[in-house]
């Protein structure tokens, strides 16, 4: 669990250039991490590569917070 969170966090910090402390499970990509829609699309692409999976568009649209992403990956 922590492992997934840490891996997701590392990608977010790198991609969105935000401080590590801001990346919490509750953080919203758009509201708290200042990501625009395209950033979120890119982030999802990177997560797909990192975890070697494909996230369907319908699922990807539901990912609004860091927790959404972590929980989705853990649910697989």
């Amino acid at each position: 669990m922590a492992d997934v969170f840490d891996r997701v966090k590392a990608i977010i910090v790198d991609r969105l250039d935000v401080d590590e402390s801001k990346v919490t499970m509750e953080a919203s990509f758009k509201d708290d991490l200042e990501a625009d829609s395209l950033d979120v699309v890119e982030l999802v692409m990177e997560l797909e590569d990192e975890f070697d999976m494909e996230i369907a568009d319908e699922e990807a649209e539901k990912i609004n917070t860091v927790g959404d992403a972590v929980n989705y990956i853990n649910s697989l």
Partner: protein
Amino acid sequence: MLQGKNALVTGASRGIGREIALELARQGANVAVNFSGNEAKAQEVVEEIKAIGRNAIKVQADVANETCVKEMVKEVIGEFGTLDILVNNAGVTRDNLLMRMKEEEFDQVINTNLKGVFICTKAVTRQMMKQKSGQIINVSSIVGVSGNPGQANYVAAKAGVIGLTKTTAKELASRNIRVNAVAPGFISTDMTDALTEEQQAGMLDMIPLGKLGKPEEVAKVVRFLASEDASYITGQTIHIDGGMVM
């Protein structure tokens, strides 16, 4: 000019698409030659590109079929490693007067000429976003700007391509992906050769430069848009029509 770049040209087995594939290769690009039906013609283009000294493969796909297009893009990236240039050229015509046009004639042309551009663009965007660079050139038509009797489906699709070009350009600009269109006018092809002298004369009357265009005159503009020389141009539609529509 395009040394080391990798391109995918749809509908590249003949006509303007073939000329674009060859021109990109002459300027240094490796080219994936997409075709839908004519494998022998596509193979000829591949051979010609190899003779120029570039890598080339032929890839079959109906551009209106997302599953096929995804497979095609995967194959091209697998072969070339990157994908720097996409030219959406594949197109069909099913001309008829509006009053006579069947729904399926309308749908066929919209599917290939407009939806196909959307599908191919979407399929390469992931790769281009990762690369943080890419050039997409869509082949529209001057009739998409001016309208043309007997081509309601074709004109609607080609006008749609211009709108799609602008939107895609705006969405992807922040990722250093440029998207432009060309709008050819009357270009000398098998199709125009088949017209009567009278019909040809009628066409020439509408063209200030007084002659038909050649496929290579379109290909050279596409090559320019694909190159770094056009680095500050995005979202534009360049008319290549001898001044017919200004």
